[in-house]
């Protein structure tokens, strides 16, 4: 008979069914909240322990005198003391305000440029490669220029932070829009989406995961540029994390210096972690795997 499918369901004896037991991931029964937290946090914990151990070993080897390279316990104690001081919170406030302002402005500017550029084919050809070029420019190279333009001021720092972060954000949205599957565009077109509604309902949501990766990368660049800026553009009246680094170096206070470094590292990772969570959540809802 010409119909191939019709017989498929009927009249075929079912094979004896084998029982399969469904369990949680890795074969264990679904985990409780407590054990989930333990399982998630042990790899970073392990990394911290390894780092501290190596550091301790180097310290004990006597490679550098202890006033140049203190041991972990001393530094961690210093970090504790520092966090308890009001001066630290003032410095942190200045730095985080700059980070928020710079990243926020970069977000707005990068998103706007990305949308406009991806909307127009001509602009895309003209500016697209320039944006990628800007991304490869080490942001510290902008500072002499920024200082000439704005003097030793907040504006000079913000200028470079924005230049560091905005290209990544714009690039994220441009490549996201470029990579929207053509089949989805065609589907939306027959459903009646045109011009702006096509953008609003299909192109932009489809580009969201790439946009969020751009944000993550943008944040990393913003944070680096900000630290470079705070080291180069020192404004006397304003204590900041960068100023504290400089200050501790001038007084050859390695323990203090390393404490500030630890704070900078942890802050950068915390914000990256938040962005990663948002990004992986969006991807998981679409059945996409997490990025790293």
């Amino acid at each position, binding site marked *: 008979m010409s119909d*191939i499918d019709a017989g498929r*369901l009927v009249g075929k004896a079912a094979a004896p069914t084998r029982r399969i037991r469904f369990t949680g991931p890795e074969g264990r029964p679904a985990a409780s909240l407590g054990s989930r937290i333990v399982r998630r946090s042990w790899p970073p914990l392990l990394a911290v322990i390894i780092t501290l151990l190596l550091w301790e070993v180097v310290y004990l080897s006597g490679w550098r005198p202890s006033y140049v390279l203190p041991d972990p316990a001393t530094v961690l104690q210093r970090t504790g003391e520092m966090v308890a001081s009001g001066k630290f919170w003032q410095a942190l406030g200045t730095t985080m305000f700059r980070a928020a302002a710079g990243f926020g402005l970069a977000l707005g500017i990068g998103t706007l440029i990305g949308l406009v550029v991806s909307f127009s084919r001509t602009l895309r050809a003209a500016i697209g490669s320039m944006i990628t070029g800007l991304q490869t420019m080490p942001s510290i190279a902008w500072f002499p220029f920024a200082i000439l333009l704005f003097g030793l001021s907040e504006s000079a720092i913000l200028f470079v932070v924005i230049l560091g972060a905005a290209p990544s954000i714009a690039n994220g949205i441009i490549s996201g829009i470029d990579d929207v599957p053509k089949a989805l565009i065609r589907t939306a077109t*027959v459903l009646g989406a045109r011009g702006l509604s096509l953008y609003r309902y299909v192109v932009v*949501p489809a580009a969201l995961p790439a946009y969020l990766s751009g944000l993550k990368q943008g944040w990393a660049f913003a944070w680096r540029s900000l630290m470079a800026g705070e080291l180069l553009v020192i404004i006397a009246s304003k204590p900041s994390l960068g100023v504290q680094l400089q200050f501790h170096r001038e007084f050859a206070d390695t323990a203090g210096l390393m404490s500030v470094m630890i704070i900078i590292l942890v802050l950068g990772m915390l914000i990256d972690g938040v962005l990663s969570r948002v990004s992986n959540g969006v991807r998981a809802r679409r*059945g996409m795997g997490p990025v790293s």
Partner: protein
Amino acid sequence: MRLGTAGPRGRMPAPHATTERAAISLRGVGKDFRGAAGETVALDSVDLDIDAGDFVCLLGQSGCGKSTLLNLIAGLDSPSRGSIDVGGRRVGMMFQDANLFPWLTVRGNIELALRLSGVPAREFGPRVDELLETVRLPRAASMRPHELSGGMRQRVALARTLAQDCSILLMDEPFAALDAITRDAMHDETERIWLERELTIVFVTHNVRESARLGNRVLVMTPDPGRIDSELRIGLQRPRRMEDPGVADRAADLHRRLSGRNEP
């Protein structure tokens, strides 16, 4: 080219087949693709008139240009030669792949189609429920596309297609991924919706029996280059079933045409 038919005619005229004006009309349509393997003539000199309210099946082996033809009618591609006229009618299309929007739930996918058809938002809820009932997925509303099986995705795509307000409906192998029972149910629904909304349907399949079950007319296509080779008017009473002897009879005829053995 053998247009016209060898099959028994006129047992029953097509319901609401108003012949006053063709809904879809193709004249000398050809489509070439330039690809890595050089130039492919996907379609060549296709002439076709489809009446408003007709149900036409396109039957042909893989690669003979069925999807290409639908894309041209939908206006997604433009022909290399010839002209296509749908008289300004709104064309809806269901693709060979479900193409659901992965960031929306099943409900969101169908709602978007309603929104783009200008349905007011307060009607979304009941309309979506009704459409999901139609495709027999009443409990899938809050699921995400990646959580569905292939056949379920295809049915959501059908619901989304039916959500739009169109008068011509193009369907590209919509039920190829379904089990026989669900597929039969979908055939009944497609037939019901076609009658109810007085749609013009062009339905692509490579299942001969399906084309005999659904169509008023079945157009048999041949590849290299893609052409419409012959046509069979089914002329059977509706509603039909896959198992009907008449359907089997037409299917056997179509099968002979497809395999190139025209006379038994």
